[in-house]
């Protein structure tokens, strides 16, 4: 069989906000651009973002990009790179105006200017009064942005490969990236896409946790592709959890419910938040509430037969208030939990929401990695942007509304830099057949009817026999051992269990060997990716012996700037960790020194 090959100037893997905004920059410069997406582009996860996108437009209250920068640095618990943060906050303003010109229907003030909402973590004057910085298109900002970008790309003749699944990157001996091997899901046929530059924009990986607010497609594919290509992942221990997801389902229940007087109770009917945060109680910070819930459950005070969730009570608020102030909550609880919250409390558990870590990049979207023993270098021809990347603007925690901003700003920055790169490197490099063989072998692996133990990773006789079963076991291990509550004990046990799961996967084979629309095969490839990413999260979390931002270790409860003001880098080879310094020097302004983070 000869493998079909296509050539483009640029290959973009992922058609969410990051990928599409990059593609648009490129198409405008006359380059040939291929965008590959495993689902139809407007079904990318960006569609789910409702809240909005931050920019210091100062339309509602006074604001400057410098205040936005301060809030972002503080929110990151000082782990964000201040040059990248300055760049993002400055770029936010033209970025939102660009979207406006593209026709994104932002909600407006009577004056005709874009309306801006107040979100948590936004301040005026470097930590002063509340700011209003979030621009929204009603409650469907993500959809409006994605839709506008998609239409613009169609007009610009971007070439879309819809329902193609990227398998692996191709890299030559000098480390340059040459494109990727992809699979057409419909026909089951592989295709080699050769490109002078490749941008990974595959989004998040929330599916690695059992309870998540992320769609099923968020399996961290691009992150795992980078790992397999020898590139590390940065700051993977930082994962944001939202305290109230519907138990067993993950769907978010907004903070507004507690804002309106809803409160949490444990299996003994106790309002336990009073013990953890005597003043703020149920309105304490997200991480505080999430940790309290998990602690209650771990100490045996959960609800239900398995005592594995707590309850969110709103019934005391009355039907009328629920209908007027919390529309949608009643329907959500009814549809997803099968209960009516006017009569019964809602079962909840913290839900995995956002990955702050990812593929390390500079502020031009170029992937950077340590070269041997030396300093970090740019990986030639490789870019990353969006939730799969780590620029790093969110550091140890992300502020609401900063993620849509991140994907747009760095998607565009990557697009611009790619244009320059191709000017200097106008030719395709020769394909590395060795790298291609390796990528193909991953595909062939799942076509075998029986697994032959390959290489040193000896297949373990599988306890579970299906990909689905193993996936559920894996996600539970991640939740129990590397989720909200993490100590040396839970994490080291978790890493051991993950290693065993990795071996079990090698013992599973698929029953369905048809080529056409073989979803089981895609799910197997996704599980492989999830396990690689899960290992990165657990290993990095075990390594970081402090608490910072979203990473909280009761066994190392304080932030330790002396030892830990540094980024983690996890390498798949030998599950190794390295560290690199935080870039605390901004582009033009003075650095914000670490302070205690109080709100």
């Amino acid at each position, binding site marked *: 069989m000869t493998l079909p090959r296509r050539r483009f100037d640029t290959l973009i893997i992922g058609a969410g906000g990051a990928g599409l905004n990059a593609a648009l920059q490129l198409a405008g410069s006359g380059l040939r651009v291929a965008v590959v997406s495993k689902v*139809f582009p407007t079904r990318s996860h960006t*569609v*789910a973002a409702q809240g909005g996108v931050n920019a210091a437009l100062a339309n509602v209250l006074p604001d400057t990009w410098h205040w936005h920068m301060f809030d972002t640095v503080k929110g990151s618990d000082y782990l964000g790179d201040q040059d990248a943060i300055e760049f993002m906050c400055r770029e936010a303003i033209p970025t939102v105006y660009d979207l406006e010109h593209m026709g994104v229907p932002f909600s407006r003030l009577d004056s005709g200017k874009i309306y801006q909402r107040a979100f948590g973590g936004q301040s005026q004057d470097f930590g002063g009064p509340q700011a209003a910085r979030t621009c929204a298109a009603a409650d469907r900002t993500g*959809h409006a942005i994605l839709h506008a970008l998609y239409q613009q790309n169609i007009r610009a003749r971007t070439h879309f490969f819809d329902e193609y699944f990227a398998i692996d990157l191709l890299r030559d001996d000098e480390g340059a990236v040459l494109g990727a091997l992809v699979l057409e899901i419909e026909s089951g046929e592989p295709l080699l896409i050769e490109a002078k530059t490749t941008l990974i924009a595959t989004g998040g990986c929330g599916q690695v946790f059992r309870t998540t607010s992320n*769609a099923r497609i968020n399996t961290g594919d691009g992150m795992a592709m980078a790992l397999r290509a020898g590139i590390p992942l940065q700051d993977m221990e930082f994962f944001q959890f939202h305290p109230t997801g519907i138990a067993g389902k993950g*769907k978010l229940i907004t903070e507004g419910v507690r804002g309106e007087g809803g409160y949490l109770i444990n299996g003994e009917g106790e309002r336990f938040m009073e013990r953890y945060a005597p003043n703020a109680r149920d309105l304490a910070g997200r991480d505080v509430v999430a940790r309290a819930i998990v602690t209650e459950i771990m100490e045996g005070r959960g609800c239900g037969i398995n005592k594995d969730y707590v309850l969110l009570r709103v019934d005391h608020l009355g039907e009328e208030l629920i209908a007027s102030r919390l529309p*949608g909550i009643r329907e959500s609880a009814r*549809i997803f939990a099968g209960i009516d919250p006017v009569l019964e409390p809602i079962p909840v558990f913290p839900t995995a929401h956002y990955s702050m870590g990812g593929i390390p990049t500079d502020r031009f979207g170029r992937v950077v990695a340590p070269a041997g023993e030396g300093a970090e270098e740019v990986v030639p021809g490789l870019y990353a942007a969006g939730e799969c990347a780590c620029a790093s603007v969110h550091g140890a925690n992300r502020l609401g509304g900063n993620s849509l901003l991140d994907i747009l700003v760095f998607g565009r920055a990557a697009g611009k830099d790619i244009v320059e790169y191709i000017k200097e490197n106008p030719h395709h490099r020769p394909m590395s057949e060795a790298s291609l063989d390796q990528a193909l072998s991953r595909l062939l692996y799942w076509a075998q009817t029986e697994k032959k133990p390959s290489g040193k990773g000896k297949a373990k006789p599988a306890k579970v026999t299906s990909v689905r079963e193993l996936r559920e076991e894996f996600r539970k291990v991640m939740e129990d051992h590397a989720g909200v509550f993490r100590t040396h004990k839970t994490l080291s046990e978790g890493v051991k269990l993950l290693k065993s799961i990795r071996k079990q996967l090698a013992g599973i084979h698929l029953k369905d060997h048809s080529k056409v629309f073989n979803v089981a095969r895609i799910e197997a490839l996704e599980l492989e990716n999830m396990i690689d990413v899960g290992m990165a999260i657990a290993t990095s979390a075990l390594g970081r012996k402090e608490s910072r931002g979203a990473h909280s270790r009761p066994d190392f409860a304080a932030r330790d700037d002396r030892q830990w003001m540094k980024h983690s880098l996890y390498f798949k080879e030998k599950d190794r960790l390295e560290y690199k310094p935080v870039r605390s020097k901004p582009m033009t302004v003075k650095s914000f020194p670490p302070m205690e983070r109080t709100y």
Partner: protein
Amino acid sequence: MSREAGSRERPGAEAGERLRWQCRRGMLELDLLLESFLERDYPSLSDPEKRDFTRLLEMQDPQLHDWIMGDKSPDDPAFSPLILALRETLGQP
């Protein structure tokens, strides 16, 4: 210009797998409901209902979400019973 897949009819298991992939959406809510529906409710639908479901999957995510949450009702009457069933699919014992 749309290149949305899933509109072509194909018989057999292959069609089932194709539908399964069309149930992968950008919102967790839709994933949960569509996946459950496909597994427990879809097999007992009549052929015309199955075709309606395939058509329903071509709708945009926020549109489907609004219909299911009851914020708006679908203009195509053939979708109404499917939306009702989707609303119930997780609540069933």
